[in-house]
């Protein structure tokens, strides 16, 4: 029986002419009752002092039976006959892929020597972790533990290769429903936040919650087993939820109820509305407009609007002055143009732009506020991520799960573009940002149209590592994601995989046994590829110490949508429990909903001490109505009594 890496010989390298030992692969046999398995790390010691570390990638068992016919003959054709008194001699023959030679040069075939199970020190050597875990300025980020034959050894990734600048990005694949992909990313973020050394700088994470309540409870503690706690202890990570989580979600079309499953009364106060106006959208019009819409003429007019009109003092040709800050302002400008052209006669051109182009652009742009209602406002009010004031070790969750694909694309594109711009200028507030995107195959499919989102993802994957913009992406089928995006991920993580997916060309480098293991991987186990690891390594990670989406929904059931007034009251009450609902309702009485929304947004953004006072102040002045009818008098004044000669 194998024990945990205590240096006992468990096998011997064998080599024949047909099955030779090479520098990168060799074969060894073990006893039949071995606990060795696929993924175990072994060490070969040659008498010369050379050491070879390798990972088991395949295993075979066979006996000295030359042909099945011999068994038939021996049993005289009756499989239920007297069993053979002697079991045939069997061999367990393993194939191992070399992880490292020590010394590295000259590269030689693996010596035909004894094979031992790796110890913890051997695991570090085999995975080249000694270079970044045992050094003056360690950069190890625990990803899980390696387990084989009773040995539990932490496995770490190199932060320089996970967050840049050497390489960056992490891509995780796995079938849905096994709580692997999201859990693994949540655990990795916790690991990064707790173990990223100070000399590597600050880091924050931006997570796009694209489905269900997956990422809605990162600040709530989750349930852990004793085994999970042992794993955390082995990895020297404290099992606790994230400290600084900021939630953002757009409104629902009613403009006041937040479009998120984190709408329980106890939690909704910590969700900030994500609201954008014209300026925020116009720069990303390509995302929102169909490719067919944007011909050269429309593109030129959009550029004109962005450069010359929006948020500038603009005079039309008919004496009007416009300062366009919102979709409503823009609509007024368009109306002036159309009216002006109509009054001027039969001219079809305004400032070199044909009226048909102007109408087309107007229709598409004005319609955006309808298509993305809840996120995009007509009135110009804005509530955005704190670009420029990102906090170290903070998680910014954007819950876009309730939005349609178009809205999700817009949020994703703009947020990531803003992150990139700020990182380029070095004024984001942190030096590294991990952007987590699930369902990457939706945003960057291997085939299909070359969308703006996909182009941007390509740009991040190719240039992000220099900026500190790191993409953590997950998808079910890696083969369905753009090759360059997948290929640029320095670290690849695989949960349980679908056999059809494993049959695709991207997995040809894996041995059949490794594929089988991947197809049957239990929850909590991953296969990791990392630049320092010559071969994929299997690790086990603990479940994240945060509340899972389904558990969160059970514990904090989402609140039902409430009427406008009530929703405002609740959101303000979430900021300060002392506020009087009656007072808020009084202050809202007679106000337009747009004004109330704007005031609510400003209050949530400012989080003032005096919530009601601030809210009321932001509602603006009211124009009081005057009572024109005197109390007790009739509304009509009777005519003076005169004699009417024609009266009868």
């Amino acid at each position: 029986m194998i024990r945990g890496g205590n240096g006992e010989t468990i096998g011997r390298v064998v080599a024949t002419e047909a099955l030779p030992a090479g520098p990168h692969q060799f074969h060894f046999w073990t006893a039949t009752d071995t606990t060795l398995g696929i993924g175990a790390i072994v060490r070969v010691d040659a008498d010369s002092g050379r050491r070879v570390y390798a990972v088991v990638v395949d295993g075979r068992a066979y006996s000295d039976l030359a042909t099945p016919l011999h068994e038939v003959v021996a049993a005289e054709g009756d499989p239920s006959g007297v069993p053979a008194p002697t079991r045939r001699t069997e061999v367990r023959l393993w194939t191992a892929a070399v992880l490292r030679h020590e010394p590295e040069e000259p590269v030689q075939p693996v010596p035909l020597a004894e094979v031992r199970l790796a110890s913890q020190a051997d695991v570090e050597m085999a995975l080249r972790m000694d270079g970044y875990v045992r050094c003056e300025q360690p950069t190890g980020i625990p990803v899980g533990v390696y387990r084989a034959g009773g040995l539990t050894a932490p496995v770490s990734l190199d932060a320089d290769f996970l967050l840049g600048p050497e390489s960056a990005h992490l891509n995780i694949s796995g079938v849905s429903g096994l709580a692997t992909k999201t859990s693994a990313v949540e655990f990795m973020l916790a690991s990064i936040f707790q173990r990223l050394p100070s000399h590597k700088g600050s880091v924050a994470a931006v997570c796009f919650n694209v489905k269900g309540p997956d990422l809605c409870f990162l600040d709530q503690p989750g349930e852990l087993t004793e085994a999970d706690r042992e794993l955390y202890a082995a990895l020297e990570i404290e099992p606790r939820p994230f400290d600084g989580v900021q939630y953002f979600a757009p409104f629902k079309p009613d403009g006041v109820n937040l479009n998120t499953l984190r709408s329980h009364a106890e939690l909704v106060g910590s969700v900030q509305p994500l609201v954008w106006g014209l300026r925020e959208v116009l720069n990303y019009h390509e995302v929102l407009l169909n490719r067919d819409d944007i011909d050269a003429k429309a593109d030129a007019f959009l550029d004109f609007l962005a450069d010359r009109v929006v948020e500038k003092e603009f005079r039309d040709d008919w004496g009007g002055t416009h300062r366009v800050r919102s979709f409503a302002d823009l609509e007024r400008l368009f109306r002036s143009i159309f009216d002006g052209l109509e009054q001027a006669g039969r001219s079809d051109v305004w400032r070199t732009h044909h009226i048909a182009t102007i109408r087309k652009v107007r229709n598409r742009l004005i319609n955006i506020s309808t298509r993305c209602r809840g996120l995009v406002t007509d009135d110009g009010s804005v509530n955005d991520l704190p670009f420029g004031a990102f906090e170290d070790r903070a998680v910014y969750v954007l819950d876009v799960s309730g939005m349609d694909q178009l809205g999700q694309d817009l949020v994703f594109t703009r947020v990531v573009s803003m992150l990139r711009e700020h990182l380029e200028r070095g004024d984001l507030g942190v030096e590294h940002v991990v952007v987590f995107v699930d369902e990457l195959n939706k945003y960057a499919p291997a085939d299909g149209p070359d969308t703006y989102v996909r182009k941007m993802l390509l740009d991040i994957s190719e240039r992000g590592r220099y900026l500190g913009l790191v993409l953590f992406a997950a998808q079910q089928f890696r083969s369905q994601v753009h090759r360059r995006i997948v290929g640029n991920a320095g670290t690849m993580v695989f949960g349980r995989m679908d056999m059809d997916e494993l049959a695709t060309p991207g997995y040809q480098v894996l041995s059949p046994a490794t594929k089988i293991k991947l197809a049957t991987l239990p929850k909590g186990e991953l296969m990791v590829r990392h630049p320092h690891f010559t071969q994929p390594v299997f690790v086990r990670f603990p479940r994240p110490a945060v509340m899972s989406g389904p558990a969160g929904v059970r514990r904090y059931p989402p609140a039902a949508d409430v009427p406008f007034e009530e929703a405002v009251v609740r959101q303000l009450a979430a900021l300060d429990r002392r506020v009087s609902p009656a007072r808020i309702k009084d202050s809202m009485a007679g106000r337009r909903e747009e004004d109330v929304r704007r005031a609510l947004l400003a209050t949530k953004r400012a989080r003032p001490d005096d919530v009601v006072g601030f809210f009321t102040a932001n509602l603006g002045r009211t124009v009081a109505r005057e009572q024109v009818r005197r109390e007790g008098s009739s509304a009509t004044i009777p005519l003076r009594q005169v004699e009417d000669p024609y009266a009868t």
Partner: protein
Amino acid sequence: MGGPAPPPEQTAFLDGIQRYAVEGRFGLVPVVRGYVAAAALRREGDRLRLAEHEAEEMIVVPLERISPGQRQALADTGIPLLDCEAGERAHPVVDVQLAARAVERRREELEVAVATALLRSEPDSWLVVDGGLGGLTHLLGSAPRVLGLIKSHETQFLDGPDLEVAVTLPEGHRSSVFARRVGGRSSVYTWYLRLWSWEDRDLLHGLVRIERPATDAALAEATAVSRWLLAERAPLSAPDGRWDRLLYPIRQVETFLRAQVGGWW
């Protein structure tokens, strides 16, 4: 006789091998390098485990034919010297045969040593030996459960109708037990057993001869022993050409010993 029956729980299997080669000559005198080994595998459950193993390497030479200097030179190799019979006159072929005979004798001695060691530690165990019991005569009195399994039938013990009965036994049948003398004074009981049908094949196909020390028990147990030997047909020792007579465990002893020879052959 009945069909195959489960073998005894405690059973071991013994075999030996020998190798020799002429390494050189002092004049006409051949210097033969020899290797002998014997091993016994014990069956535990349905698995074979090594119980005893002896191996020796030697230089075989007729010492009376070589000079003290030559003898010293051989001794300096560190390999034990084994004296062998010298022919009446030097003969390049006969002298080698004499040396080979010495190697064979040494192999038999090793087999005895292994059998003795095994039976000392496991006196109740059955021991199936590959070949006759001629080399184990001094054990015969104290080891009633030793059993020799002879695959070759060059030596003829029966004549006429008896012989015909013996060599035409149908599958799963045995002959009656008869005695034969070995090593002068001792005698063993022996009988023929047909393991596999010989029809459409050679007459000797699947025919083995069993030897046991001449005791009453051997007579009484002849059928029972034959039945469990029938059970030993599985697993088949194919692709060995002797699969019809070679028991799988005996083949495994051979395989083990050959593997131990290492660089010798």
